[in-house]
């Protein structure tokens, strides 16, 4: 599903090039549940942003479902993102001024889904995530776990093939975190490809494979940086 070849990201500083990601080669098959781990500053979130097309300033090759993302114009990348991806954030990032139902409706409206159809999909999703009772509440009226549940529901509502999650349980207490991870596992078993960034070994244990990053390099299974192989 995903193939990264020699992907790099760097910043120009006074001291010269400062690399955030270095020679990343990564392949992820459809239906996989992959965890990206590593210490702070290793480049985990940056890698996720590149995969999610939130970041365009990188070099190398990136193919998604056989399409060459690296050769695409930004507008086409947005379309690809809208078509295939959902994003879950550590900070939930719900829109404060919108109710739960409206937060779910917004991604569909951005995909030009007709009003009646949107209403039906939102109703189904509220039901599926058992948040019908919360549909008219604003994010500030929900607990952290409930907000993240809405965040996941929003990421999935447009029917993506790939779910990207950046520290999805980072702001939740452990019970709420486990609840979200179980939800991810269930979605993965239903066929959803999931890539998550986490510091938590427990969360990583829900995935099929762990990719470890250090100083922008992917580590080999033995723990050394890939470049040292």
């Amino acid at each position, binding site marked *: 599903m995903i193939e990264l070849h020699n992907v790099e990201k760097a910043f120009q500083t006074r001291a010269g090039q400062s690399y955030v990601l270095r020679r990343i080669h990564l392949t992820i098959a459809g239906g996989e549940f992959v965890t990206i781990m590593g210490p702070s500053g290793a480049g985990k*979130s*940056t890698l996720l*942003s590149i995969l*999610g*097309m*939130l*970041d*365009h*300033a990188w070099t190398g090759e990136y193919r998604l479902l056989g399409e060459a993302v690296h050769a695409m114009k*930004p*507008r086409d*990348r*947005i379309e690809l*993102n*809208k078509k295939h991806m959902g*994003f879950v*954030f550590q*900070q939930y*990032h*719900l*829109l*404060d*001024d*919108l109710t739960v139902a*409206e937060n779910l409706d*917004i*991604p569909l*409206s*951005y*995909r*030009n889904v007709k*009003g009646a159809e949107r209403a039906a999909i939102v109703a189904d999703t509220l039901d599926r995530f058992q948040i019908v009772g919360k549909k008219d509440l604003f994010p500030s009226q929900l607990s952290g776990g409930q907000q993240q549940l809405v965040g996941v529901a*929003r*990421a999935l509502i*447009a029917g993506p093939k790939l779910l990207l999650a950046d520290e999805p349980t980072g702001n939740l207490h452990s019970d709420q975190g486990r609840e979200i991870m179980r939800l991810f596992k269930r979605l993965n078993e239903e066929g959803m490809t999931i890539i998550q960034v986490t510091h938590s070994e427990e969360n990583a244990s829900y995935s099929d494979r762990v990719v470890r990053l250090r100083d922008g390099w992917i580590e080999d299974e033995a723990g050394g940086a890939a470049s040292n192989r």
Partner: protein
Amino acid sequence: MSGRLQDLKYALRALRRSPGFTATAMATLTLGIGATTAVFSVVNGMLLRPLPYADPDRLFTLASNQSLPDLEDLRAQTVSFETVAGSTWQALDDTGGAEPQQVDAALVTAPIFDVLGVRPQRGRLLSPQEDRFGGERVTILSHGFWQRRFAGDASVLGSTLPLSGQSYTVVGVLPASFHFPGREPDLYVSLRVVYPLAARERGVHFLRTLWRLKPGVALGKAQAELDLASRRLAKLHPEENPGESLPLTPLRDRLVADARPSVIVLQAAVSLVLLIGCVNLASLLVARAAARRRELAIRAAIGAGRGRLLRQLLTEALLLGAAGGALGLLVARWGLDALLASAPANLPRAGEIALDGRVLAFALVLSVGTALLFGLAPALSASRSRLRQDLDLGRASARVRRGRIRRGLAVAELALALVLLVGSGLLLKGFAKLSAVEPGFDTRKLLTFHLELPEARYADIAKQTLYRQGILDALNAVPGTRTAMVSELPLSGNWLHHNALFEGRPAPPPGQEPEIQSRSVAGDYFRVMGIPLRAGRPLSAEDRADAPLTGVVNESLARLHFPGKSPIGSRIRWARMEGAPVWITIVGVVGDVKHFGLSEPEEPALYTPYAQSLQAWKRWMDVALRSSQEPGRLGAAAKRAIWSVDASIPVTKIRTMEEILGGSIARQRFLLRVLAVFAASALALAALGVYGVLWSSVRMRVPEFGIRVALGAEPRRVLAMVMTEGAHLAAAGIGVGLALALAGSRVLSGLLFQVRPTDAATYMGVSLLLAVVALAASWLPARRAACTDPIIALRND
């Protein structure tokens, strides 16, 4: 729900959930749009809108007045003009009502209506047969007079109107939409019929003339023709015509010439207020953009394209603009009414001033444009490569960048406010000096009114003298009063001058004799008015018709024509009077009065007794009644006394001298008042700008202050830090503002009285005021910073 409806719903909600932002932005838009529209409507009505006459670009006038014989000759010797007409004014007594009333009559030549291209609403206009010496007495009514005097009676045509002892037949009514250029008369009569004596005189230059160019004729050609005709006239009639050039001036320019500088200053001032308002709005929107960036990043991350983001923000900006525009329209309507209500009575083209759609659209476009520019900026500058940063709340670099922009905007606001304050300050100082000018007489407890005797019953001087003496006796019988009369009251806007010759000096060529103001007086005029006697004696009851002719000159005349010696005993006479020379002996010198306005110099003047008048046509008089009590209460008693002599003479223009004095500086006061309101608004907006910038700066720096306090900084030190930031803003704003004010101060120079546009004291005073206001605006944010609780601040970080 369609996407656009959804955008609208979310925009409404977003604005409702930020009441502080919404209220401030709306107030700024409302003030900006409202004030600009109101003032620009005045500018548009007076200066820009074409005159409401057919082909107004072909209408011209002359700077100097003409006599009717000269006008006819000039007309006959030129071919460039389609029609030419003249008009003058005369008050006529309407004795047909319950009380005698004075009406303003325009004495015109018949083509005046063709020149202006007006058709009657009812009846007809003056025919050439009626506009001739000895013609039938007919009148055309203005629409307003028809409504007031005849209650809009549809059968008014053919009815008669008794005017100054003569009966006039109403033959026409003009439409309500017609406004005579300049002062609006009640009715129109033929000059030749009503005032044949003056109409025949080549030396009586009393006609304002209107010239309509033929289509396609160049102004230069017409001007050359007119100048040639003028030179011919000068050769043929050198005594009455100096042969000066007669520059054709567009009628519109002539009508508004006096008011133009004030109106331009007002427009500049309101534009500054609008600009400050826009800067304020920009500052608000830049602050809002910080919160917006995160929201937009979320929307982009869940699939919104840039177009969709722009649409959302556009909806909000337009919603804000539409609401601000609607409220602005209300404010504009109210403001225009208030402006016109407080405007001086002689505001030119006042009848044509109306709320203007184009002006409203202009202000709306400018304000909404600002809202769009700064409101859309976050979406325009948003790029997906920055999405991650924008999702990460509170990044320092973005805050610093926006803080710098907002500080720049606050400096701009302060600078613009300083420009307005300097303008107001200079005008205020000039006005204070103008108000302090001594008019040369005592304006307190003085009631004045105007009387005009009808020619039919008061054709000769003897009858007039009898009447005047009767009035003086009747008024002096009112306890506690002393009364006198003058033909031209100071500051009333009236004056009359003649050419004069001095005994024993060679006579200058005809037409080049010195001009001297001629003022007739009756009663103890100088004592009643409080004009000081400098030498000799005042005029008295002894200066009767059968006594040798006497006169009193003012100091200006003594200084100019008798430098270093006393004029008393010298003799003076009016030039080119028919018959044997009649010499007037100067018996006294009195102090100058500010006859033409407090800011205008007095001209040489000769006061002569009405009883010895050589001009029987001078049948008008202003009565001055000095009282020991409040003069305003004496109007009714004075009227009774006057009507006890002749009940058919209208008593008009009943005003205290203080009112006349106030009226003479009404334009300056009006300008100052409006400018002061604008300056205060600008100051308030600028203070709001400084407050807003520092408040958000303090909010962003709460953790920093928390750390400082935790490390032992005293509250007053934190307070001083923020106050210093405010002081820096003020200093920068004042610096830029001073430079701008100095550069633009020349605009005001024509409106200032005894104040230089670069008056250092004003600049310093205003700078100090702005600094104090800016520091006061810094105080609240500074206090908030000083009161930072380190525990709460650090926990919230």
